[in-house]
């Protein structure tokens, strides 16, 4: 009987583990909900941008994030087709900002994916006039995108290995002398633009009838080349001495290597070169259009432009000429700031073919590669 005193007291309700869970559940739920709400309230706003790799430099993005207490999520892509496909498969509101090839803005506008930008709030008056390209960046009098950066697809070379004088004419660049020492940039539009310029055809006027002539020049170019390379492969080939010339290269290819290998340089031959541009816009389905517009305004501001121009991924000229005030003399030297009036006058925007002509040009390019 003495054992009775050692027996535990009659269990209370709360001693039942299942009931403990049940009685504490509402308070747990309440606490969790409160915590979730509190977290949401204090969470940073987020902006989702579909961009080229030069926008992923923290030196460019972090100042905007701090100024607006926002987290900018960046997703790189290659090729307008890939970006449009990605947007098509996304839910409305998933993306807020789009960086796009300047010649393809019209495709995005046609697809109705870009929102109108407040043209009067954009500093286009400070831009190099040739790259404002209002007709490319808008439709029906409305502005849907703004040019943010530009540069040239021209001739990059190793000045220690080739005669710089030979690089001043496209015919000598891919002449017999440099057989096996050339790489071609792996994008058909600028390279075919260069071939057109070599044949005396304006890039804006390339038609189906010109393709035979351009194809013949492409074949010559191809026969001299050891590779057709993308950005990294072309840079590697030039830096390692695999090739001495990159047709279709430019400041975007050699600028990041300038400090280590000053012999790697570029020029615009007497026939001219093609000019690339990239534009930025806000997506129509964005639920944060105001913030996205602020991001666009930051990117085209002198501060944003100077950081974008010298991005760790690739350098290029800022569209806003006032960015020059923020760049160092050395940076401007690498970008050839003082030569821009001459370069802009001697270059043409790279071909922006219609859909049918685009197919023909791409087929011609692939046929040339398979020769």
């Amino acid at each position, binding site marked *: 009987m003495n054992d009775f005193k050692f027996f535990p007291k009659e269990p209370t309700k709360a001693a039942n583990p299942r009931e403990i869970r049940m009685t504490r559940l509402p308070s747990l739920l309440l606490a969790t909900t409160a915590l979730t709400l509190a977290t949401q309230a204090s969470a940073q706003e987020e902006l989702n941008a579909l961009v080229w790799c030069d926008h992923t430099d923290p030196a460019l993005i972090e100042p905007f994030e701090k100024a607006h207490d926002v987290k900018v999520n960046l997703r790189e892509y*290659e*090729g*307008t*087709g*890939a970006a*449009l*496909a990605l947007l098509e498969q996304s839910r409305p509101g998933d993306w807020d900002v789009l960086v796009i090839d300047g010649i393809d803005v019209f*495709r995005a506008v*046609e*697809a109705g994916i870009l929102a109108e930008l407040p043209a009067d709030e954009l500093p286009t008056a400070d831009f190099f006039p040739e790259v404002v390209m209002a007709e490319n960046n808008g439709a029906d009098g409305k502005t849907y995108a703004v040019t943010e950066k530009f540069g040239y697809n021209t001739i990059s070379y190793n000045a220690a290995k080739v005669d710089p004088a030979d690089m001043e004419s496209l015919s000598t660049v891919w002449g017999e002398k440099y057989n*096996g020492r050339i*790489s071609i940039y*792996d994008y058909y*539009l600028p390279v075919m633009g260069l071939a057109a310029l070599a044949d005396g055809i304006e890039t804006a006027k390339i038609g189906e009838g010109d393709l035979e002539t351009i194809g013949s020049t492409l074949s010559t170019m191809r026969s001299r080349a*050891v*590779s*057709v*390379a*993308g950005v990294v*492969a072309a840079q*590697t*080939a030039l830096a*390692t*001495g*695999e090739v001495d010339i990159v047709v279709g290269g430019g400041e975007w290819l050699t600028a990041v290597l300038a400090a280590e290998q000053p012999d790697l340089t570029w020029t615009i031959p007497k026939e001219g070169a093609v000019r690339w541009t990239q534009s930025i816009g806000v997506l129509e389905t964005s639920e944060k259009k105001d913030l996205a517009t602020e991001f666009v305004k930051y990117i085209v501001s002198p501060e944003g432009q100077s950081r974008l121009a010298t991005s760790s991924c690739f350098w290029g000229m800022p569209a806003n000429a006032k960015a020059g005030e923020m760049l160092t003399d050395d940076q401007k030297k690498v970008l050839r700031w003082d030569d821009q009036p001459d370069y802009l006058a001697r270059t043409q925007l790279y071909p922006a073919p219609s*859909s*049918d002509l*685009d*197919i023909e040009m*791409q*087929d011609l390019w*692939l*046929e040339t*590669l*398979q020769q």
Partner: protein
Amino acid sequence: MSDAANTQRTLDREGLRGWGFVAPALLWTLAFFVLPFVVMGAMSLATLEGRTLVWGLSPANYAELAEKAYLWRGILVSLEITLTVTVVSVLLAYPLAWIIAFRVPARWQRLALLLAILPFWTSYVVRSYAWLLVLAREGVVNRTLMGLGIIAEPLTLANTRLATVTGFVHFFVMLLTLTIFANLIQLSPNYRRAAMDLGANAFQTFRHVILPLTLPGIVTGAFLTFVLCIGDYVTPQILGGNTELTVPQIIMVQLGRRADFPLASALAIVLMGIVTLAYLASARWLRLDRL
């Protein structure tokens, strides 16, 4: 209740349990193979009019295969590279697996296998770029050959089919070594002893006994090599220098700027057709249970 009814109930229960075990794999296959395959098949019969996708039952994308020489050439290039890689990888992997299985003491076999698959531990892309540097005009190979006085001028090794095949072989020898080793190690030494007792020399023993018994391992590894190689984009893109284009590279070009998913899908279906033919050709020897 009769015995027959009980037996039937037991069978039904077993059947249900069997479906329960199979269902996850079946659902997985339906969701991640059958459904995407149907979508891809339907997409291959659609067309791109201007920049607008038009669904339908058009054979136009398949007709392009006959019309455009570069597409045919792409298929041929893919096949040539894949077959070369498969044959070379088997020829290199078999002796390696043999040495590990029969010449390396049992206690060192694990280490030998580990060393054989060590290159798997590095990134595929990084490994490809490393090969580009090794094979460059001023790379290790050319410097060595010139240093030894074998060549006077650097050879063009990078950005060639040779470079692509080298990159692939480096990867697939490891895979094949594993499948062939797994097969070799299961062979009882009695097979060899019996053949020798019957008067066969070493070559005859290998030719008539060992090789036929290890064919499942060879064919399984070769089939995996074929499938992975023919669909690979990275290696030919980095090492081949676009001097010739394989089907995956052509598919990427179709998608990159124009987003021509219908033609890209048709090319992908053709690739699947080639893989299916390869499977049918090797099905007789594909014995995964022997690995």
